[in-house]
């Protein structure tokens, strides 16, 4: 599997699907919430990310529901998606720990 660090939108989309399946608009709202309103995914960006994640078997369709006469799809993380998210989280945490250690040392 690809070992490169995840881009921020990809990381946030995976994170938005970590607790439960969500539909597209739900993912956009959750990403905005997770990032404190800093990241507002546009629809094209979201589906570009989702397309990559589905292709990479990190996200899959959970179910379809009819809403206002249109089919709404809910997506969920796969086991591979959860592993990728956890690996990225571990990488970010390791970086944060290393930098905190440096910051704790006051320059002479």
């Amino acid at each position, binding site marked *: 599997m690809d070992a490169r660090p995840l881009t921020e939108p990809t990381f946030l989309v995976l994170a938005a699907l970590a607790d439960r399946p969500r539909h597209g608009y739900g993912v956009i709202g959750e990403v905005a919430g997770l990032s404190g309103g800093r990241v507002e995914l546009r629809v094209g*960006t979201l589906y570009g990310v989702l397309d990559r994640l589905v292709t990479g*078997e990190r996200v899959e369709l*959970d179910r379809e529901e009819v809403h206002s006469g249109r089919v709404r799809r809910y997506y969920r993380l796969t086991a591979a998606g959860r592993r990728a998210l956890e690996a990225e989280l571990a990488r970010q945490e390791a970086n944060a720990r290393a930098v905190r250690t440096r910051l704790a040392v006051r320059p002479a």
Partner: protein
Amino acid sequence: MSPLEERYRRLLTWLPEPARSRWADDMTDTWLEATTADDPEFAEFGSPSAADRLDVARLALRLRLGAPGASVRAVATGRTVRLVALAGTAALASLALVGLVSTAWLHGVLPAVDAPDVGGVVLWGPREVLSTLVTALTVALWVCVARGAPATRPLALAVLAGQVAEAVPQLGGPGSLLPRLTLAVPVVAAALVPAGPPLRRPEWPVVLGLVVLGPWAVGLSALAVLPEEPAGWLLALLDPFVQFGIATTVAGAVLLARRAAARGSGELAVAVLAAALLPALAGRLPSGTPTGYAPTVLVVAVVVAVTAAVTGAVGLRSVRALPLDPAPAPGAPDDGPRPPLIG
């Protein structure tokens, strides 16, 4: 279907198949929910904003250039753009390196080499600074393209902006602007090149080193043995654009000799590079050159034009024959068919 939905769906026709079939309904539902908030007036009279159009256009471009999820044909198109960027920026880097070395020599900053006597102070104004900066960035761009670095796109845009800034004072002199069209093509390709891993083949530094250094090694060797007044045809053959034209023609011939199943992106890339060389070669044709110079350039230009036409036709036919099925994901567990959406 509301007029607004109809307008957004029309926008989604920019997306290539099979992505359009897979995502259009879902994107429409999400977009309507994100924008209308059940406002009946907006649903009737509203339209996708410029930002929405740009958003869809970016996704369409990425998918058409072989982003993950794109079709086999789109992946081949993306590979063509990548080859144009790679080979084109390698050629630009060879010109740029010589430019940088020449500038350093003129200013006497080359170690162990005296500056030439140019009979006065060498100019170092804003134009020269800009030119040197663009030259240095061009070398960096080639390295980024070869390494598949994320900085490739912003760097390509910076080089392009620098090229435009350099060209503006030359407006009105078409002869001098023609080579700039040639120089811009690989840079535009680098700006569009889809994200991907660096070149894997261990021999690529050797191959690209030959491409970069070969023409200049030939040129310098020829200069060492040239008579005091070399013939015009010989001077023409020492022109880097003429040499690139010959190299492109040879590359096209080698690619066309391959079996039909292997054809496609390589031939198309040669066609684009050959076509891109034509403005620069045309810029070498004005009168006032030594006898034999212009006819030699003209012959090379005709050969390059034929190369562009033949490789373009073969490459297009091969790429169009590729299926519109989704390409397997890079790094996927196997090269089998794409996973179904329903889990």
